[in-house]
């Protein structure tokens, strides 16, 4: 019985991490009807940002292992990841939707920077490469190369796959392919509640996730921006006609989702400190499954879905074959979609003929 309760706690904390990632999927799907495959990699990015922030010597010496350092690392990584989310939206997803500029310059700049690193291995060569790339891209754009207006959602999905591959491989180049170990930014103690022996990390993961979900709910339900987000996800064109700056709302949605994913990345890294550039792939997919399970587009659905997936995995590992762990989420997904295609909290749609 105690082990069971222990497992339940583990499941909830694992699940709440999935839920944090799933929220980003579900919100982006809500506004763009896009499976943002790159989202799992934003989670990875968040964990790495946390790693680098925690290793800044000044932070390490001043704050060490303390609540203040944890808050600093967490918020910093969330803000940086939100920026990444906005960049992805701006330069990968928006060009096919709205008129944008400097898309080529951006991507050529990234290419140039990568090339610079490869050739020169110094900071200067990276900057030089980026400058050359940006210049080439800007000239090409000036010559009249413009994005094509996208008619199919398929192209967008493939862009998402491309961005995901980009972040994974760019991560390997920038952060190195070898795993790193996330520092202990909060002290570990054991809490004994009755017969239960909880370690403080899990409790913190759980509490922080819950707090973030409450914050998100407040933003979405009670702020003006949140209202606009809901309007955009209900009907993008109508929202635009009503004077909502849909591009700004979409960018905000990406920022919010990415920040939550980064938080998820750091929380999971507290429990399992091994981080590497491909760490986002599986959790990303499972979180997406969680979002679908809960009914994609539904925020409470994503939370419930995440909890179910996390719980099912922990139980399967605890009481069954741990080698099947990676398949469980998908088995649940298949069953749910076949029994209730719209997910738990989703709404079915009738196609007009």
């Amino acid at each position, binding site marked *: 019985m105690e082990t069971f309760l222990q497992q339940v706690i583990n499941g909830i904390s694992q699940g709440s991490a999935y839920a944090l990632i799933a929220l980003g999927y579900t919100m982006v799907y809500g506004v763009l009807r896009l499976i943002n495959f790159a989202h799992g990699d934003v989670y990875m990015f968040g964990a790495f940002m946390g790693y680098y922030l925690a290793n800044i010597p000044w932070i390490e010496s001043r704050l060490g292992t303390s609540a203040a350092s944890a808050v600093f690392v967490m918020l910093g990584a969330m803000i940086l990841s939100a920026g990444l989310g906005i960049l992805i939206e701006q330069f990968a997803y928006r060009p096919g939707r709205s008129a944008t500029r400097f898309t080529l310059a951006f991507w050529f700049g990234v290419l140039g920077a990568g090339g610079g690193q490869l050739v020169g291995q110094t900071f200067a060569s990276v900057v030089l490469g980026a400058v050359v790339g940006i210049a080439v891209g800007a000239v090409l754009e000036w010559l009249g190369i413009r994005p094509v207006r996208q008619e199919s959602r398929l192209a967008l999905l493939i862009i998402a796959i491309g961005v995901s591959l980009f972040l994974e491989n*760019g991560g390997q180049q920038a952060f190195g392919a070898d795993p790193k170990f996330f520092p202990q930014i909060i002290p570990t103690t054991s809490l004994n509640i009755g017969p239960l022996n909880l370690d403080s990390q899990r409790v913190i993961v759980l509490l922080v996730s819950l707090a973030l979900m409450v914050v998100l709910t407040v933003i979405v339900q009670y702020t003006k921006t949140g209202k606009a987000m809901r309007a955009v996800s209900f009907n993008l064109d109508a929202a635009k006609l009503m004077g909502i700056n849909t591009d700004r709302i979409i960018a905000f949605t990406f920022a919010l989702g990415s920040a939550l994913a980064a938080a998820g990345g750091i929380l999971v890294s507290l429990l399992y400190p091994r981080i590497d550039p491909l760490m986002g792939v599986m959790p990303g997919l499972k979180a997406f499954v969680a979002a679908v399970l809960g009914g994609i587009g539904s925020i409470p659905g994503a939370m419930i879905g995440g909890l179910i997936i996390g719980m099912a995995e922990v139980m399967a590992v605890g009481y069954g074959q741990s080698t099947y762990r990676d398949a469980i989420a998908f088995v649940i997904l298949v069953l749910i979609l076949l029994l209730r295609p719209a997910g738990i909290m989703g709404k079915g749609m009738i196609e007009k003929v």
Partner: protein
Amino acid sequence: MKKWVFWLVALAALAAMESSLRGLIGAYNYQIVILVGINIILAVSLNLINGYTGQFSIGHAGFYAVGAYTSASLVFYGGPAIRGATAFLPQIAQNAVLLLAGIFAAAIAAGIAGWAVGIPSLRLRGDYLAIVTLGFGEIIRVLILNIDAIGGSRGFSGIPQLSNFFWVYLVVLITVVTVHNLVNSSYGRAFISIRDDEIAAEAMGVDTTRYKVMSFVISSMFAGIAGSLFGHYTMYLHPNSFLFTTSFYLIIMIVIGGLGSIEGAILGAVLVTVLLEVFREFGAFRLVNFSILLVLIMIYRPQGLLGAWTLFRPRKAAPAAK
């Protein structure tokens, strides 16, 4: 030209090339040529579902894996018996019989897997279908990971090498001709009608479920055959060769070339395979380049490099807007 003349000339040409190619271009390039061929089979067959029938599957690697492992285990465990039964034949013919048995088993097994996955999931549309096919692909991989008789997580080694340029490109030809003939028959028009407008297709008497499952099964069978050829070339299989990233790369091939065009799928398979090989020395950076290239193609030329252009007759435009 009579059909049998075409095939006879093709067989002779392939046999001649097989005997001289490796010496001509070296073992390393020969291997790339083989990989290109296998990817052409995979891409052209995947195009049947994603390009012509308009269903978005990202689980092709799963069927590829089923074929590879089925064929490898048949030959590995049943090989001695088959060789014994065909002992009166020369070695080369025995090998051919073995490989054909493996290919046949692979096609059947992958076809059954395609059917089993297709029936329930094709009720779903668009993104949901995509994610379920991805899920099935992953389930298949995890199952393989847990079967010890075929190596599990250690990988399956000791598979006899049976396939070569001749066999791979013979299958490439068969795949291309089959898919080309199919899409230019009533079946192909039924597939395309589903892609264009599923409701109108139903109203015109096209049993959309049946045709969707059919395209799924045919496509899976070819993926299975490709798997068989792959395993019997590399002599070693590991579940990691069949991750969903493999499916992603296949999608990229058909999209870069232009969905719903056989030439596009071939071009995409060649380009992607060769580019990834050529830039291998750049490590992760080659994939960075590659993914940026993919994003830029999709932003600036979403219809693919070839788009609606086709070399052979009837042109099929890119899929309709959804």
